[in-house]
């Protein structure tokens, strides 16, 4: 029974990782940029969500506003930080991204305060008994359902719509796609919008789980999401999803049975190293 509980807790955590890592893998697939500042957008989403709910907004409205607003901020990040650097080596964009991330943490601290923010009346805290003696809050269940929903819609978009096809064409060969009349710039904007909106969703969800939004809450996802997309085989969306859930479950068991030897991050990176030793191409092979 305990094992099942730990798996479920792992899936909840994995679903959050998936939402964050997806944006990262989308950007990497398209631009070959390691978008570290993505985690700053996740933090921003969380702040917007908490502020709107504390002003009396409904949680669904708050989540929607956070996703749309952060989506546009994501477009801004691409337009003003990455686009001017596209003809430079990817390392330059990475450095810009790290700088942006550090600056964002301090900006949040100055604007929103060092103490972090909490919901005055946290929504979605009703407990649901999944099976005897095992309670999950509505927030936890929502995390999983919303992740499946949004990732499912995204998969459908990519597979069956014109925009999705244009996006996939741009990922595999941008020059070729452009010569067939795909508006690459538009694809990139949509890409950043969707990735950033998902990060904002993850931010609001984490705020619901912990009831604490801090300027530095992006620090762990910033590097863990990088590990996840490497695990998934850089650029593979499906691999990233599998890696997210796998990592969530491994951390869940690891904190209990290995916690006195190494902490959660050490467990995650040990797992990463072992996987890379056995399968250097990542969990799921591309092609």
């Amino acid at each position, binding site marked *: *029974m*305990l094992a099942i*509980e*730990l798996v479920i*807790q*792992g899936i*909840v*955590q994995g679903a959050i990782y998936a939402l964050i890592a997806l944006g990262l893998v989308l950007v990497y697939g398209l631009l070959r940029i390691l978008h570290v500042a993505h985690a700053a957008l996740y933090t921003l989403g969380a702040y917007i969500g908490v502020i709107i709910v504390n002003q009396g907004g409904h949680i669904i409205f708050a989540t929607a506003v956070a996703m749309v607003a952060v989506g546009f901020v994501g477009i801004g990040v691409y337009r003003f930080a990455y686009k001017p650097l596209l003809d430079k080596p990817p390392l330059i964009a990475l450095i810009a991204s790290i700088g942006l991330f550090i600056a964002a943490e*301090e900006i949040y*601290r100055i604007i929103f305060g*060092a*103490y*972090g923010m*909490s919901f005055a009346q*946290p929504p979605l*805290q009703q*407990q649901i008994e999944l099976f005897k*003696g*095992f*309670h999950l*809050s509505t927030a*936890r269940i929502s995390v999983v359902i919303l992740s499946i929903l949004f990732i499912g819609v995204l998969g459908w978009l990519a597979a069956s719509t014109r925009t999705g096809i244009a996006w996939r064409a741009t990922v595999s060969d941008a020059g070729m796609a452009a010569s067939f009349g795909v508006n690459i710039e538009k694809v990139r904007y949509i890409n950043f919008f969707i990735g950033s909106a998902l990060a904002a969703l993850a931010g609001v969800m*984490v705020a619901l*789980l*912990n*009831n*604490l939004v*801090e*300027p*530095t*809450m992006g*620090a*762990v996802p910033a590097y863990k999401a990088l590990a996840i997309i490497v695990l998934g085989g850089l650029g593979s969306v499906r691999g990233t999803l599998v890696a997210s859930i796998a990592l969530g479950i491994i*951390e*869940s*068991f690891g*904190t*209990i049975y290995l*916690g*006195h030897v190494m*902490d*959660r*991050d050490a467990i995650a990176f040990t797992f990463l190293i072992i996987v890379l030793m056995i399968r250097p191409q990542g969990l799921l092979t591309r092609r």
Partner: protein
Amino acid sequence: MTKIFKSLSFAVFMALSLPFAAFADSIKIGFNAPLTGFAAADGNSARVGAELAVEQVNSAGGIGGKQLELVIYDDQASPKESAPLAVKLITQDNVAAGISGSYSGATRAAATIYQESNVPYISAYAVHPDITRAGDYVFRTSFVGEVQGRAGAKLIGEMMGHKRVVMITLNNDFGKSLANGFKEKAGDFGIEIVNEYEYSIKDREFGAIVSKAKSDEPGAIYASGYFFTAGPLVRQLRAAGIEVPVIGQEGYDSQKFIEIAGPDAEGVIITTSLDRDSADAVTQDFISGFEAKAGYPSDMVAASAHTAVLVMADALARAADESAAALREAIAGASVMASTGQISFNALGEVQKDVQIQIVKDGNWRHYAVISDTELLAPPAE
């Protein structure tokens, strides 16, 4: 034209040198605290607490007619920052003494430098045992982790009467030293430690630990942490249907903990230094003065920094002459009523004072009990 320029530059020169002239009649105290970065919340509370103490001392006439002055630097809770800042404070700012409003890593690094320069240094709330071992110029006005851990064992095993305890330990020096003290005395109070889980300071998500702790069916949970880890932890424990008492320590001691954990904070009990319901005037002045100055209720780090400044001011007033050695002597012989209780030091420079037990009641920290067992609370002496 040149004449105008000359008189202008003279005026500017005079204006610039005025503050320095004023400072000649002040006594400078160095203060390092994390004002930016992950620990900025604690650092800023500590800063306000220290500033409040300086204002109180100065408005009461200062030290022998001289005003106290804090020289404040941001150490980002990092030894990389605090060590060069300590050098700067001692060699360039010529401070008479230093106070740490920072965490253990930063405080340890600075303590070594203060000791080497023979300038007295007081750690306000850093817990690492090695800080005072830097030498005889270094003092601490807060408990080492072990002392509070022992108090926690007495609280749970004897005063509350719970014998099956699950420990959730923060795996840094703070959490580990608390856990050591707790385990050292747990047996004496009949406590069986069912399991111990560790987490890192970056964790806010405790789903797995909560599930496992629930299956352990403890009578109480002893969880170390800071308000930003303990708030989410308590909330998640309660959300999983765990109703047993949660016992924490001074790291919880902030209104922010209650804000994060919300109604789930009710009944959480901690060992700490600040008694909100103290009848003592110094403590009450601090509590009301801090809230007026900071705009939010007082917390442990602020009270600790406030205490450290008052202890320093008291020693400055009593010191036989202006030498660092005389100041050190005066601190060592301190017996001061401060915002965190009656303060005196042992041979190592560790504080001897009571442990306050506080409980969350109706959304506020309230008095629950006090532990004055000097044998149990004896700090390390070497």
